[in-house]
């Protein structure tokens, strides 16, 4: 059976909710340091709301997959494809922003740097995954 392998893919149902709240606290701290505690508190409330939604939203496959406790090899593939789509959307958005900036007579910052980081990340990932087989 592949149960052991599958359990490696599966995460605790608390992982995503706790990660969301932790991120909310980090945003609150950063906003507080930046002199915007109310914006930070709003972000924390949003992240906590998302955490509660994911934690209490029932047993649909999508929610359980996002939460982590319903993950198996098929959901891992879905996650991989969804991540690739999100990356492509982000890159297209960055390219559009970069071109808009250049067309407006600006330097293209910070879109050029973000695109360069994305490109370098991809170029490093390809040989890494090729090497790992």
């Amino acid at each position, binding site marked *: *059976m*592949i*149960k*052991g392998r599958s359990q490696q893919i599966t995460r605790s149902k608390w992982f995503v909710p706790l990660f969301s709240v932790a991120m909310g606290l980090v945003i609150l701290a950063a906003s507080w340091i930046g002199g915007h505690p109310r914006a930070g508190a709003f972000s924390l409330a949003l992240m906590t709301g998302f955490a509660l939604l994911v934690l209490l939203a029932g047993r649909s496959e999508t929610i359980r997959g996002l939460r982590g406790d319903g993950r*198996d*090899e098929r959901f891992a593939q879905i996650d991989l494809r969804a991540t690739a789509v999100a990356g492509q959307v982000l890159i297209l958005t960055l390219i559009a922003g970069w071109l808009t900036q250049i067309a407006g007579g600006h330097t293209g910052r910070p879109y050029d740097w973000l695109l360069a980081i994305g490109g370098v990340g991809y170029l490093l990932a390809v040989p890494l995954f090729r090497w790992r087989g």
Partner: protein
Amino acid sequence: MKNKVRALRTERNLAQGQLAEAMGVSRQTINSIENDRYTPSLPLAIALARYFGVTVEEMFDDQGS
């Protein structure tokens, strides 16, 4: 990929959930395999074949996909 998972499962009076539990995957994954929407990984295909006491070739038909 065409397969005999549903036929073998119903032959043994197993619910999708029971087979999913035995394989360590979700019921929806078993359903997707049975409806030819998801091709399982090699470890899962071997586990399914072993579970039903058949070979992988007997269970999955790559010509019919």
